């Protein structure tokens, strides 16, 4: 992303999906003075961004190659695929890796079963239900006797 003729920024993050998670992530990057662009199909979702958000917003479909090119995905170091649809996030992540060669790709997957399939494909996956169950495990079991945290999902 060229800013007034400077060399391309080397800390450019793109977030696809401006839900609660996307908005929080984008606002955080922006607060730390990083370069960030957040994309969502619905421009109304950008209201979730913090008032001090200093990054770019783009209304568009993350699966549209033209929209990703417009956002200069090829210059991004990090892509966060956090739409509300697992399959969209998976496809987005793979497009980012294979077509745009983005270095770091992080995906939020709701379905723990899918996470195991994609865990080792160069894409980092975050599964909210697994993370939540680990945290709740820690609360339920008193500290000294705590067994190794297991990844069994507790229905949330």
């Amino acid at each position, binding site marked *: 992303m060229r800013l007034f003729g400077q060399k391309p920024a080397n800390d450019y993050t793109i977030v696809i999906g401006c839900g609660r998670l996307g908005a929080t992530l984008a606002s955080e990057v922006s607060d730390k003075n990083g370069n960030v662009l957040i994309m969502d199909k619905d421009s109304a979702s950008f209201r979730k961004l913090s008032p001090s958000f200093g990054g770019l917003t783009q209304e568009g479909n993350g699966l549209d190659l033209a929209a990703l090119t417009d956002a200069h995905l090829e210059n991004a170091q990090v892509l966060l695929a956090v739409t509300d649809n697992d399959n969209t996030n998976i496809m987005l992540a*793979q497009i980012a890796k294979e077509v745009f060669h983005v270095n770091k790709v992080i995906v939020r997957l709701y379905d723990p*079963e899918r996470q195991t399939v994609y865990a080792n494909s160069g894409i980092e996956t975050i599964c909210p239900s697994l993370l939540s169950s680990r945290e709740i495990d820690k609360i339920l079991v008193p500290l000294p006797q705590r067994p190794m945290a297991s990844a069994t999902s507790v229905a949330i």
Partner: protein
Amino acid sequence: MNKKILLIGGRSKAKALATSLLQSGYEVTAINASTQDCQKLAEISGLKVLVGDGTKPYILEDANAGSFAMAIALTSQDQDNLVCCQLCKKLFHVQKTVALVSDPAKRDFFHKMGIDSVVCAIATVADVIKQHALVDDIANVLPLGSGQVQITELRIPAASPAVGKKLLEINLPKDIIVGCIMRDNITMIPRGDTVILANDKVVIISTQEQQVPAIKELTGRC
């Protein structure tokens, strides 16, 4: 030989494809997320139907996806077709995966991601229209190898500059094979000294780029 085929998603597409495959002797199972669509599909005799989201591993497990020779993803969403085929390949080792793709720009990407066959309805229709807009007398264009090889059957009109000439005299682009010539119900495999006559039906094998120049040389039309 394993003749089991798994269809995921689609509504009328699944119905049409299932019927055709069953008639050809395949064992077909269809997975569909909508109970209503499943009920319609269940009306087809011989078709096994399962309600569920074909992009969820446990649904594919219930369907015993590992036992199928081929999985065909027919949903209207490219990303669902992608994930479904990848799960079938990675988790269940289904040999052949086929995905419907609505965005022509994504065809190469799908191939890269390990999907064996990619069908883009829009691109196919566009190709057919382009072919037919060219010359009326072209019949039965058969694309092979993802559209890079074309087998074209054309009728040589009387006014064609090629009439009366030997094959080797005609200025055909290189790398064209004239496969056969059909004349008065006789089919012959031509050689360089075979003479082209008016109303001959000529079958040529060519690449996509050379098809139009070849047609021009043989029929005199652009």
